[in-house]
């Protein structure tokens, strides 16, 4: 078919016209033989401009167009839509930015005109190499696999499950509820945990759209957004194959083991407890020393493992305050001392909680170089003075760390971990529960240390992301500007697998070549740049297209 190319130059009111001699650009372009239509317009993005463009494309039966106007950031999508409406594949269009890159930055009109002409020529040299890229649609399964049956996984399951969306909730222990089962109360409300938890667990049990697998284990997850296949080992040792469209990971946390830091005396002295051990003791109803007597003085040591882990675990200050409340409620005469380094009580409710706890007669001592001894604690004050404090019971507030099996899971799901081993979110600010793998989400302490309220928020956020993107009966439209790998040129070095942030490339062991999963590829171009054999190209940004454009721009 004979190509008919249209060139449209936008004046953008005075914005381009005043500083680029459009007449001159037209003079040069009109001598290029492939140009069928050459028009200037006052404002192409206006309603009138778009109508004119559409009519012109249709009237002349254009097969490709070049528009010289503003930044692609501003109106590329606008003009792509016009192309579609006119029946022209939107990828057979190139936008040349002669506003931001010429008119607005070059004061000398002649130079700006010269530059604009070059850019239009370059686009004209490039446009014959454009390929029409067709939109694709893929089916997508609305069901969800939730890994982890703690409060976060439970909340996500309850929000997600519905008549047209099944949730498969896999919990590795024998019961739902996670670590919260051990807590008597929650800070700062001091409300009973069991009420909150039991109500939610009942909700899960009564929901016929949630399938719970306790003592379960996810053995394998394959596939991509909308079409995952998971293998789940059930409590009865059966292996089930489950098809889902998305996965929520809510595997919680482990506590840092204070035995790693001998000066805290954990394991050495009888009455040194970790926070979880103390929660359990308190929930049992009696706070007693190993010798059966009531403690008279108790020290709560904050920030255990903070230095070793390299981060603040966000929740320890608040639960240490809660422990002081537990103690004062059960043993009104007990002396409670909090040994802390920095008080981290962010948010509207916690300062009051701190103040009220302090007012019950609890001591707060800023201390460093803490050493636990027999029935006593040695520490240094802020001013550097050495002090001793007698304590017949010590409660340690250890850091929150990723679950021991986080790495295994990360590998299976092809999601990243951060330097501390927590699952890494897609974007620190804008994608807190998304991962680089589309369709796989993270929530709760598996993403980073946080309290119950924030974990519930993240569970809700996962539900929000899934409910708004994986919709029953609706197909997915993946990115069309993806990369492709030439089987003939690929040497199988697998460098591309390492640089792909989206897990979109896999290695075909039989043919010994890398293959792109076009559903997952987002067209970032990392693999293209990294391929030593030049085997990878990015659709719409192929080496030929860019080369032709650059050669003409420099001619």
């Amino acid at each position, binding site marked *: 078919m004979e190509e008919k190319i249209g060139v449209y130059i936008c004046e953008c009111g005075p914005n381009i016209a005043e500083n680029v001699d459009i007449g001159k650009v037209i003079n040069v372009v009109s001598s290029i033989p492939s140009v069928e239509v050459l028009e200037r317009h006052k404002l192409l993005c*206006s309603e009138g401009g778009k109508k004119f463009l559409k009519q012109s494309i249709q009237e002349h039966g254009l097969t490709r167009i070049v528009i010289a106007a503003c930044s692609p950031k501003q109106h590329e999508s606008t003009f792509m839509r016009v192309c579609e409406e006119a029946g022209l594949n939107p990828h057979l269009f190139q936008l040349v930015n002669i506003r931001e890159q010429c008119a607005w930055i070059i004061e000398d009109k002649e130079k700006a005109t010269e530059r604009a002409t070059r850019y239009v020529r370059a686009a004209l040299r490039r446009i014959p190499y454009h390929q029409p890229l067709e939109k694709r649609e893929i089916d997508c399964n609305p069901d969800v696999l939730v890994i982890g049956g703690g409060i976060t996984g439970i909340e996500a399951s309850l929000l997600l499950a519905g008549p047209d969306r099944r949730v498969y909730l896999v919990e590795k222990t024998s019961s739902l509820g996670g670590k919260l089962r051990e807590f008597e109360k929650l800070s700062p409300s001091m409300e009973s945990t069991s009420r909150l938890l039991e109500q939610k667990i009942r909700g899960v049990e009564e929901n016929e759209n949630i399938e719970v697998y306790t003592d379960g284990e996810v053995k394998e997850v394959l596939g991509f957004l909308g079409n995952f296949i998971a293998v789940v080992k059930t409590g009865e040792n059966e292996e089930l194959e489950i098809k889902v469209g998305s996965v929520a990971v809510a595997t919680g946390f482990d506590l840092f083991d204070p035995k790693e830091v001998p000066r805290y005396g954990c394991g050495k002295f009888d009455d040194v407890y970790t926070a979880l051990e103390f929660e359990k003791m308190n929930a049992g109803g009696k706070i007693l020393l190993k010798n059966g007597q009531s403690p008279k003085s108790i020290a709560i040591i904050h920030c255990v493992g903070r230095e070793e882990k*390299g981060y603040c675990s966000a929740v320890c200050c608040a639960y240490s305050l809660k422990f002081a409340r537990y103690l004062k409620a059960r043993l009104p005469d007990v002396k409670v001392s909090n040994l802390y380094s920095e008080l981290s009580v962010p948010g509207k409710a916690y300062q009051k909680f701190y103040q009220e706890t302090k007012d019950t007669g609890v001591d707060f001592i800023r201390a460093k170089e803490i050493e636990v001894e027999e029935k006593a604690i040695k520490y240094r004050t*802020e001013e550097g003075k050495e002090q001793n404090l007698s304590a017949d019971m010590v409660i340690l507030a250890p850091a929150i760390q990723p679950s021991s099996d986080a790495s295994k899971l990360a590998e299976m799901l092809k999601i990243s971990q951060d330097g*501390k081993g927590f699952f890494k979110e897609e974007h620190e*600010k804008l994608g807190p529960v998304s991962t680089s793998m589309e369709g796989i989400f993270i929530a709760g302490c598996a993403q980073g240390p946080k309290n119950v309220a924030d974990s519930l928020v993240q569970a809700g956020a*996962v539900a929000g992301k899934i409910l708004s993107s994986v919709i029953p009966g609706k197909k997915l439209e993946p990115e069309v500007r993806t990369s492709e790998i030439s089987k003939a040129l690929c040497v199988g070095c697998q460098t591309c697998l390492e640089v792909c942030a989206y897990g979109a490339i896999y290695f075909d062991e039989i043919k010994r070549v890398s293959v792109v999963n076009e559903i997952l590829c987002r067209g970032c171009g990392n693999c293209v740049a990294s391929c030593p054999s030049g085997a990878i190209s990015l659709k719409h940004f192929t080496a030929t297209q860019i080369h032709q454009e650059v050669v003409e721009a420099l001619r």
Partner: protein
Amino acid sequence: MNNGDVLVIGAGIAGIEASLLLAGSGRKVYLIEKSSYIGGNVIKYEHVFSNLECATCMVAPKQQELLENEAIELLTLSEVLDVKGSSGNFVVKVRKRARYVDLVNCIGCNTCFDPCPVSLKNEFEEGLGERKAIYIPCAGALPNVPAIDPENCIRFQGKDCQACKEACMFDAINFDEKDEELELKVGAILVATGFNAFNPNKISQYGYGKFGDVYTAFEFERMFASNGPTEGKILLRNGQSPKSVAILHCIGRKEKGYCSAVCCMYSLKFIHYLKDKLPEVKIYELYSDLCIPGKSYQKFYEEMKEKGADIIRAKEFKVIEEGKGMVIKCIVNGKESSFPMDMVILAPAIEPREDASKLAEVLAIPQDEHGFFQEEPYIPIATPREGVFIAGCAQDPKDIQDSVAQSEAAVGRILATL
């Protein structure tokens, strides 16, 4: 029959995120915004902690997506007057003030600014820069269409001026546009109205308002912003570069009665701002308790410290005049200390919007003792009024990540239940 449409109040980062997700799910969204632009507080920041990404660049694609999304009806210069009905069937009365500039015809060329004879302090720039009566708050603001501020435009004070209209080549200015009252029918309402900064004027000891070179963190953000009043130059009022800068944390914490959760982190970020522009500057961070919770913030603290700053625990600080300069007096390690300083930056508490009470009344939702909207126990994004949800700093001081998470969670609950 429940109405699936949703009203989102506030087009900051939380409102934008929620609107995009809701529209993606097939819901019709009415996004109403009090000001003339979208992006809220976030677009005021040049960089955000801890990845030091440019905030405007980070949000711009979302803003663009929002403006292009046909399922989202954006109503700027608008506020809610009245809400009737109940969950699933609310009837909302909205007042939409006139922009006097046509959103379709205007191409955002800014030709209309220069001829405008009015010049006044730009609120967006925290008063550090000026604007005209026809204006956009800052370069890059979206929608890239100016608004006329009738309170300051002399035409609206009876003068026969049409300088902007004469300058406009697209016939985009319409002085006859009228304020409108709209009635919207929606099934759910999400409140994401953000925060204000505590005004340090209320506490005289910090010298704010008394000394020219005592700034709030928000003023300093604009000073560092490349699209701000000094185009990113850090300057004293006398035009010189400061040699010593102190950042005082926790301004207003005692008065407000809570820790604002984000000040330590953005105060640490200021070390990067300062060292980036003034490598030799001496920096003091004076704090009471370091609040840097979470997996990546301690690392940020260490990185900032390494850039070169004295991070000192201090209390009872006051800023006084001594000789010709400013001096910070405070207690460090139990001893009185003083630090002569060229510039002081105050990190003020995050507080509810000035009109939060009014909105709470209109929506019939409770506020907590501090004036933030009160959440339901363990459903931080729900209010006691069914169908009305909250997200972001309107609920509690928090950072961008947590605001985004809350807005996504609000969407989760709306889609799951309504």
